[in-house]
């Protein structure tokens, strides 16, 4: 325990914490300027999330895909890759899990549920594998190819739903109960929120990321490639294979996130005309969480809390819900300018010593 505490670099840990505080403070200033009461606003967020089981449940539910999307971004980042395609991988996983649940609806629950979850992961993996392959073989920059894969996913899923799985209301039919992650027990516990068993999948994914990256030889290789591809190559590691592997595993996390939405939150997939935004928020979650599994969980909780709490802020304090987006953007801005915070901290502490 002491060893672990010693290992943490408190300075790097301070940057995200200060960013969050600054983001909330700036949000408060904006509210004051527009004429809202920031104390009432933040109070309603905190009260609803911690005191009302319904919003607690909704926050945890919102956390599940956010954490998985954050893990996906963080995992690729550890190998020095920027996976902007989480959004597309998530949609592919969402559709695959729902489609699998509907097509194999006659199977018993013990087979159908894991199969559908895995189908989501597999579709995400495929959607991550393609940019990985392009990067490894043809040096196509992964930022560009993953962004393009997002659009392919957006329109392909819409096409497939429209032509093969269509039902009234611009969506797929509802999945059979045997494939559903939703649970009346959890719903009753939280006053009818949509909290579902997917949080167990998220926890497993968090542990899996930590285990793969820090406890296996392959993980060591992946991180080595992230630090320096050339040195890794010189040391005899297969860089291209590690790039493909990294983006594929990253895609699995994202695909699972989509499966959680499909099998847990919604129980179906709508024809999306725009992106869900979960994948892009995943980038922010990973950034704020310093690309560590625990960090991703904490920042995922913060973002989910802000999003869910933002809805009650709207109803109790009358503050427009868009303000939450501004606060999230501000937090990311401050994390991005972490160098400035570090510099300011350095100045302050040095002055203190004099």
């Amino acid at each position, binding site marked *: 325990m002491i060893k672990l505490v010693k290992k943490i670099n408190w300075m790097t840990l301070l940057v995200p914490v200060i960013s969050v505080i600054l983001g909330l403070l700036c949000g408060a200033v904006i509210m004051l300027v527009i004429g809202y009461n920031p104390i009432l606003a933040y109070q309603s967020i905190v*009260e609803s999330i911690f005191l009302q089981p319904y*919003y607690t449940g909704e926050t945890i539910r919102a956390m599940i895909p956010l954490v998985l999307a954050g893990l996906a971004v963080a995992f690729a980042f550890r190998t020095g890759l920027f996976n902007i395609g989480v959004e597309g991988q998530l949609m592919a996983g969402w559709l695959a899990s729902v489609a699998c649940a509907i097509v194999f609806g006659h199977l018993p629950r013990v087979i159908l549920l894991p199969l559908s979850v895995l189908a989501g992961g597999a579709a995400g993996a495929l959607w991550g594998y393609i940019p990985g392959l392009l990067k490894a073989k043809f040096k196509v920059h992964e930022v560009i190819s993953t962004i393009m894969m997002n659009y392919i996913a957006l329109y392909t899923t819409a096409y497939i739903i429209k032509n093969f799985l269509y039902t009234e209301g611009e969506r797929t039919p509802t999945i059979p109960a045997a494939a559903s992650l939703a649970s009346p027990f959890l719903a009753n516990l939280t006053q009818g929120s949509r909290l579902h068993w997917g949080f167990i999948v998220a926890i497993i994914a968090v542990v899996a990321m930590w285990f793969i990256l820090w406890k296996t030889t392959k993980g060591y290789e992946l991180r080595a490639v992230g630090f320096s591809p050339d040195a890794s190559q010189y040391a005899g590691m297969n860089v291209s294979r590690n790039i493909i592997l990294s983006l594929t595993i990253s895609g699995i996390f994202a695909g699972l996130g989509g499966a959680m939405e499909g099998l847990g939150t919604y129980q179906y997939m709508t024809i999306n*005309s725009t992106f869900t*935004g979960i994948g892009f928020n995943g980038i922010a979650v990973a950034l704020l969480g310093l690309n560590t599994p625990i960090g991703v969980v904490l920042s995922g909780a913060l973002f989910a809390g802000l999003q869910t709490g933002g*809805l009650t802020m709207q*109803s109790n304090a*009358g503050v427009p819900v868009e303000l939450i987006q501004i606060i999230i953007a501000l937090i990311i801005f401050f994390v991005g300018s972490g160098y400035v915070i570090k510099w300011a901290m350095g100045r302050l502490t040095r002055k203190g010593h004099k």
Partner: protein
Amino acid sequence: MLKKRIAVLVAFVVVLASVLAGCGNSSKSGNSSTTTKSTFKAGMVTDTGGVDDKSFNQSSWEGLKTYAKDNNLKVGTGVKYLQSTQASDYSPNLNTLVHQNFNVVYGIGFLMQSDIQKIAQQNPKAHLGIVDAVAVDKNNKPLKNVANITFKEEQGSFLVGVVAGLTTKTNKIGFVGGINSALIKKFENGFKAGVKAVNPKADVYVQYAGAFNAPDKGRAIAQTFYTKGADIIYAAAGDTGNGVFTEAKNRTKDGKKVWVIGVDRDQHDQGLPENVTLTSMVKRVDKAIYDVTKMTKEGKFPGGKVLQFGLDQNGVGIAPTTENVSKKALDAVNTYKKKIVDGSIKVPTTDKEYKAYLANLK
């Protein structure tokens, strides 16, 4: 090192204390909400388009605001809207209003159907309303505590089709739809039927943009249609239709007069200053919301009923601004309106009905 461990311990205790304190408080906050039951409250949840979308959500909110004004309710507490930024917000937003004991809670748009169904079943005492959809239970029976507000869009679209058919000079007319769905098909088939009723020679080009919030796509389609020779386009596509307006204005500026037919509300102002709005198919969501709220207040909440607002209740129709519509077309509109209301013309809603209608026409 010891200091840091103590700090962690202190932080842990503080968190634990606040959580425990929270448990004590929760019963108190539960009580306070039940005491405010006596006053009448009506709320609505917008879809992701937001409350200022210039059509559907905005119109609903105007309906509630008018109701508040007429009944001395306070905007923000007596009537209230909650905005959704993503589809997963629908359920918590609807639930928030239900938990705050609003007497009636509206979900604006068919995208909220499954959320409304779930919440209605979880809260059998709550009164909910849904626009453009019918909320049903597992056996496909309408839920007892949901009022279903639907419109006969095909009737209003028929009338603007009549105007288009009598106004076109090129005998080519365009229809731009948002998402290809049963709902927008009602607009399309009603419109085509109206055109064909007065001008059988006219061609109607139809294309769907695939989205309600893509003005760029709306503009691209309008470009194609106008270039093919169409001189009127009916845009039943929400925000996507704004792209059609942009294209029409540009062409009119360049000296080629073309027209747009607006949708949902009177979009005359949208066509200014080039004045490209021929007429609009208005869908009085505001009136429907107003009526249902009034019924609820009087204790006559139409739960389980499918309300259809058509021409006879002025739920749909052509826009009040008629300065660009010829006298001849207006007279024809009135004749056809009578025929639709008395039932001698049945306006088609689906592709199949439209085919049958065309066969009858010949």
